[in-house]
C-alpha cells in the first residue's frame, strides 16, 4: 500500500500566533516549513523509493552553568545552541527504512546519528541551507537502509510482531507556547553558589565537593509533512550540591542533592539548604565509618524517592513500547498484559501533562512529544494489573497508535520514554506505621534486622537478550533497622541481587508520603528530563549482597587546608 499523506504548503505567515497577541512571524518556523514543503513535494517523486513522511525538529537550548568548589567559582558558562533533527521515512508505513534489522547484521543497526548544529539566528537562507543538507543526507541514508531492510526481511525468519513501522495518527498538531528565559541576577547567584560550596571546606574526609546553579531553557519547534506545526518550551532550573569521599578499602561514596524548579522563587530558603547540607555531611561521614553489608535476604523499606527511582528503572523502562517489539529485547512484560505484575493495591501511570505534583515541579512534564503528538496520561498498571505500554509512533501488536511518549535528545532517533511516572497506593499508612510494620515482618520472618533504602541512584544498562536484563539501581544510603529496637545503623556497599522485578509482587504496604524524584534519564534516545513519584514501600523480600568495590586507595596525604605544610 502506498500511502501519501497530504502535504500542506504553509504560508510563512503567523498562523501560530494567538489571535490577541501582536503577530511576530517566527522566521525559524517559516524556514522549516518552506524547506520541508519543497523537499517533501520534490523528493516524493524520486526514482528509487518514495519518501512518504518527513519531519524537522529544531531544539533551541539556552542556558547558564555556575559551578563553585570550596568557596571559589570554577565554571561560569553561558551557552546557546540550536540543533536540527530530521526524520525521513521511505517505503510505506507498513514497511519503511526504520524497520529493525535482525540477525547477523543487527549489530550494525544503530539509532545514533550526528548531533547537527544549525544557526541560532533567524536567518532564513542560512537555516534552509542547513535543513536542505540534512534532508539530502537523511534521504540518502534512508534509501540505503530501506534496501537493507527489504533484503534483511527476505533472508531472516518472520517476526513475531508484524505491526507496521509507523502509526497513523489523528489531526496533526498546531500549537505554540513560548517560554521566556528568566531574569537572573548572575552575580548574585555566583556569590550564592560560592557561599554554598564553602560549606564543605575544612572537612578532611571530603575529597571532592561543589555547588552549582544550572538554568536551561529548551524551546522546540516541530513541523511534519502531515501538517503538524508546533512550538513548545520548558524551563529547567536546578540548584545542587555534591560531596564525595572514599573509604580505606577503596569504596567511593557520595551524596548529592538537587533542587529542581521552573521558577527561581520556588527554590528553597537558605536555611533549608544549609540544613540539608548539614544532613548530607553527616550522612557522608556516617557512610565512611559504616560497616560493609553482609549478604541479606528479607524485608526492606524503599523510602519514597528511592522507591520512585526503583520503579522508574526496574519497571518503567520495561514498559516502553519498543521493548515489546524489538527481537533483541528481553520482552519481560510483553505477554503480561491483563495480568498482575504488582501488588494489587498499587497503580502506576505516566503523566507528562502534570506540571506539578502537590506543588513540586516535575521535570518530566511536556506538552508535545518529539514526534509532535500531544502528551497523554497513560495508565500502565491499574490495581496491580498491567494495562498499557508507553508508545511512540512505532506500533506494536495491539497498540497501533502513539500515546505521546516519543522522546529524544537531539541527535538521536525517537523511542518511547517515560515522562513522569507516578506510583499510587489505594491504601496508605503514615511512615511511622510502615516502619512498625517492617519490624513486625522481621519478627514473622525471624530476622534480627531489616533494611531501609533511603537513597538509590539509577543507571542505564541493558534490557537486551544478550546481556543481563537490568536497568541497574545502586543503593547509596541504606540503614539497618533492628528487630530488638537498637538504634538504626548505616551500612555501605549494598548491591541488589539479580533482576528485582519479583519485588513488585511482594509490596506489602505503602506510606502516605509520596515524594518526587527529578532527574535526567539516559537511554538509547539520549538523555531526557524525567520525574518519578512514589510513596515509601514495604517489600516482604529483597536480596542484597556486597558491592564489588573500586581498587583505588584514598588519598595518601590529607587535604591541604589545615595540614602542616
Amino acid at each position, binding site marked *: 500500500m502506498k500511502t501519501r499523506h497530504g502535504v500542506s504548503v504553509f504560508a510563512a505567515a503567523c498562523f501560530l500566533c494567538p489571535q490577541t497577541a501582536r503577530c511576530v512571524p517566527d522566521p525559524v518556523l517559516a524556514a522549516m516549513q518552506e524547506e520541508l514543503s519543497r523537499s517533501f513535494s*520534490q523528493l516524493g517523486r524520486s526514482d528509487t523509493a518514495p519518501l512518504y513522511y518527513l519531519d524537522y525538529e529544531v531544539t533551541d537550548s539556552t542556558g547558564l552553568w555556575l559551578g563553585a568548589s570550596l568557596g571559589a567559582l570554577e565554571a561560569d558558562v553561558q551557552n546557546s545552541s540550536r540543533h536540527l533533527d530530521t526524520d525521513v521515512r521511505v517505503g510505506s508505513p507498513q514497511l519503511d527504512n526504520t524497520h529493525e534489522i535482525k540477525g547477523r547484521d543487527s549489530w550494525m543497526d544503530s539509532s545514533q546519528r550526528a548531533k547537527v548544529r544549525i544557526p541560532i539566528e533567524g536567518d532564513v537562507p542560512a537555516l534552509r541551507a542547513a535543513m536542505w543538507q540534512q534532508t539530502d543526507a537523511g534521504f540518502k541514508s534512508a534509501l540505503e537502509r530501506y534496501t537493507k531492510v527489504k533484503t534483511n526481511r527476505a533472508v531472516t525468519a518472520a517476526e513475531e510482531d508484524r505491526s507496521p513501522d509507523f502509526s497513523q495518527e489523528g489531526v496533526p498538531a498546531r500549537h505554540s507556547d513560548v517560554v521566556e528565559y528568566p531574569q537572573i541576577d548572575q552575580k548574585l547567584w555566583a556569590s550564592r553558589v560560592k557561599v554554598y560550596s564553602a560549606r564543605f571546606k575544612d572537612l578532611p574526609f571530603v575529597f571532592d565537593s561543589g555547588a552549582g546553579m544550572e538554568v536551561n531553557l529548551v524551546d522546540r519547534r516541530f513541523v511534519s509533512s502531515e501538517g503538524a506545526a508546533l512550538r513548545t518550551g520548558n524551563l529547567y532550573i536546578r540548584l545542587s550540591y555534591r560531596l564525595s569521599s572514599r573509604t580505606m578499602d577503596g569504596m567511593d561514596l557520595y551524596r548529592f542533592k538537587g533542587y529542581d524548579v521552573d521558577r527561581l522563587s520556588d527554590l528553597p530558603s537558605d536555611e533549608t539548604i544549609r540544613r540539608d547540607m548539614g544532613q548530607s555531611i553527616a550522612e557522608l561521614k556516617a557512610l565512611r565509618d559504616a560497616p560493609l553489608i553482609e549478604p541479606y535476604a528479607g524485608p526492606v523499606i524503599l523510602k519514597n524517592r528511592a522507591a520512585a527511582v526503583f520503579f522508574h528503572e526496574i519497571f518503567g523502562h520495561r514498559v516502553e513500547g519498543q521493548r515489546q517489539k524489538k527481537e533483541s529485547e528481553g520482552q519481560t512484560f510483553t505477554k503480561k498484559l491483563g495480568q498482575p505484575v504488582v501488588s494489587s493495591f498499587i497503580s502506576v501511570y505516566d503523566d507528562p501533562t502534570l506540571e506539578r505534583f502537590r506543588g513540586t515541579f516535575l521535570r518530566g512534564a511536556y506538552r508535545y512529544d518529539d514526534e509532535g503528538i500531544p502528551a497523554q496520561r497513560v495508565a500502565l498498571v491499574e490495581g496491580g494489573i498491567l494495562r498499557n505500554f508507553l508508545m511512540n509512533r512505532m506500533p506494536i501488536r495491539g497498540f497501533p497508535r502513539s500515546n505521546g511518549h516519543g522522546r529524544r535528545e537531539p541527535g538521536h532517533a525517537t523511542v518511547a520514554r517515560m515522562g513522569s511516572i507516578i506510583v499510587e497506593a489505594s491504601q496508605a499508612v503514615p511512615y511511622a506505621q510502615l516502619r512498625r510494620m517492617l519490624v513486625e515482618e522481621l519478627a514473622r520472618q525471624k530476622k534480627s534486622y531489616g533494611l531501609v533504602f533511603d537513597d538509590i541512584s539509577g543507571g542505564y544498562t541493558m534490557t537486551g537478550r544478550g546481556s543481563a536484563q537490568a536497568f541497574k539501581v545502586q543503593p547509596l544510603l541504606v540503614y539497618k533497622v533492628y528487630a530488638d529496637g537498637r538504634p538504626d545503623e548505616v551500612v555501605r556497599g549494598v548491591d541488589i541481587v539479580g533482576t528485582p522485578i519479583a519485588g513488585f509482587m511482594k509490596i506489602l504496604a505503602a506510606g502516605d508520603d509520596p515524594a518526587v524524584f527529578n532527574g535526567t534519564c539516559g537511554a538509547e534516545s539520549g538523555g531526557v528530563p524525567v520525574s518519578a513519584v512514589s510513596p515509601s514501600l514495604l517489600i516482604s523480600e529483597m536480596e542484597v549482597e556486597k558491592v564489588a568495590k573500586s581498587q583505588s586507595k584514598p588519598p595518601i596525604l590529607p587535604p591541604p587546608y589545615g595540614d602542616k605544610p
Partner: protein
Amino acid sequence: MRRFRWGMIAVYALWLGSAFPARAALPSDDVVFRSMRDEMGRNMRRLRMDDLPGPYYLAYTVREGTQAFITASFGALEGSQASPFLEARVQVRVGDDSFDNTNFVPAGFGSGGPGLGSASFEDDYDNLRFSLWSLTDDTYKNALEAFAKKKAFRERHRIMESPGDFSREQPVERYEPSAWVPIDRGLWERRVRELSAVFRDYPDIQDSRVELSFVSGTRRFISSEGSVVRGSDAQISIGVTANTQGKDGLRFGDSEGLHYPSWADVPAQGALLAEVRRFARGVVDVVHGSTVEAYVGPVIFEGEAAAEFFDVQLVDNISNPRGSWDEDENSHVFDPPPFVSRLGMRVAVPWLSFVDDPLLERYDGVPLFGHYMIDDEGVPAQRLELVRKGKLVGLYMSRAPIREFKHSNGHGRSAFVGEPSGRMGNLIVTPEKPVPLSELKDRMRAMCRELELDYGIVVREMGGLTPVRAYKVYAADGREEPLAGVEFVGAGFRPLRDIVAASKERYVFNFLHGSNGRTVVPASIVAPAILVQEMELRKTERKPERMPYLEHPYFVEKGRDQRIPVR
C-alpha cells in the same frame, strides 16, 4: 603590545638538586604561584605510598584565562561562547633519572601521562591547592603503576642498555607580567558572520563554516628542580572550512587556518574577507577541475604545499627521537622516527639547510606561530641546526635522552593535555642558490618539453601527502588548469634528495602541528617553493557519491529572484 614573549630577566639557580628549593623569589602578590609551590613542597616531602618510593620529580603547569569560540555558517551565527577557565597539569616521575615511569605507554586506557584537571579561575589559594593535591595523588599512583609495568617490560625483553629517562638541565626562573586581553565579542560576532556570508556568492559550495577561537591568559610552570616560569598564553585562530562535490560526485573538503599571536596581528576585516574569497575560489577551481589518470614527471610545491612537503618529508622523521616502549606492542606509533639512524648522513640535496628557531618572533614582518621562549619542560628554547648542507646534524630533543644526544635542546613540547616530546617550533628552510619563482616554472616547463610531457604539475596545498590544490601547468604556454582527485604514489624518502631548485620567495605557513600519537603544538614553517625532479601521481581511489537530490535552496531562489540581498 608585545605578547607571546617571556620576560627578559633570567635568573639561573646555581644548583641541581632533587629537593624543592628553599624559597625561590616568587612575585609576592602571585597567589597562584604560592598555592602551587606550597602544595608541591608538601608532596615532595611527604607523598609516599606504603614502602614504595615517593616522586623524584614533580612539575605543575597552570593555565588560566578566557577562551571564546564563535562560529557562523552561510551568514548566520551558529554559536558564540566565552568563558573564564583555569586548568592544571601535574607531572610525576618515580624511580630516578636513569630509569623512571616515562617514555613508556602502559596498556589499557588512561593509565599514563600527566594528570589533568580544572580548578577555580578566581586565583583562590585553597581551591587550587586542593585540586593540585587531588591530581598529584592520582598521578602519583598511576606513575607507580606504570613504573612497575615498565620494569616488567624491561625484564621480559631483557633490555640492558638505556640512555636514561630524564636529562639533567639547569633550572630556570623567568617571569613576565600576565597579559590578559579581552575579546570584543559583539565585534567578532559581526565579523565572523560576515566572513561566513561570503559563501552566498559560491553556488558550487554545498556546506561551509567560519570559526574563531580565542585564548588569552597566563601560563605558570614550576618544577621540584626549582624552575619557575610565568608567561602569557595567547592564540587567535580563524578557521574556514568548505565541503562540496566535484562534477563527478567526488566529495571534496578543504579548510584553512589563520593563526595570530595578538589582536594587533589580525588583518583588517577587508583583508580577511578577501582571504575567505580567495579560499572559496580555490575550492570552486577544484570542483571544476579535471583529473589525470597517471602522471610521472616534475612537480613544483609552492606556498603552503612546500611547507607541508617539508613537514612530511623531514619534520615527522626527526620529531620525538626517543619514542616510547609500548606495552601493547602492536602498534608502531611510538617507535623512534626513521631518521634517528641517519644522523650524519645525507638526507637532502647539499644546497639546502634546515634550522629550527623558536626564538624568532617574526619572519619578514609576519608573526611566527611556532615562537616560544621556554619549552613545556621548563627548558629555554634554542636555535637548532637540523640539516647542514644536506646532512642531518640535529634532532628535536626534549628531556628524554637518546644515545646520540644526552640533553634537551629546548624542544620538549606538547598541547596542554599531552606529555612533552621533541617537537618543532619555527622551521626555516634556506636554499643556497635560489631563483625567482617564475624561473622555477620556466625550468619545469623546459623539463616537460625534454620529457615530452604536455604539462607539469604545481601543488599549492596538501593534506598530509595528498594534494588538495593542484594545477596542471602547460609546457607550451604556461597556462594553468585546476586538478581534482589526484594522489601521490609511493613518495618514500627520496623527494628531499630529488629537489632540483628552490625559489627566492619564501612563504610563512602557520599551523597546528600534529605528529604520530602526539598532541598538536603551534608551529611555523618558512619555506621556498621547490621543484622536484620526478614524482608520480594518479587518480584517487576514492569513490564518488550521488549529487544532492535537490538544489541548494538559496541559489534556487537567487536564480529566480535576484533581489535577495547578500548580507
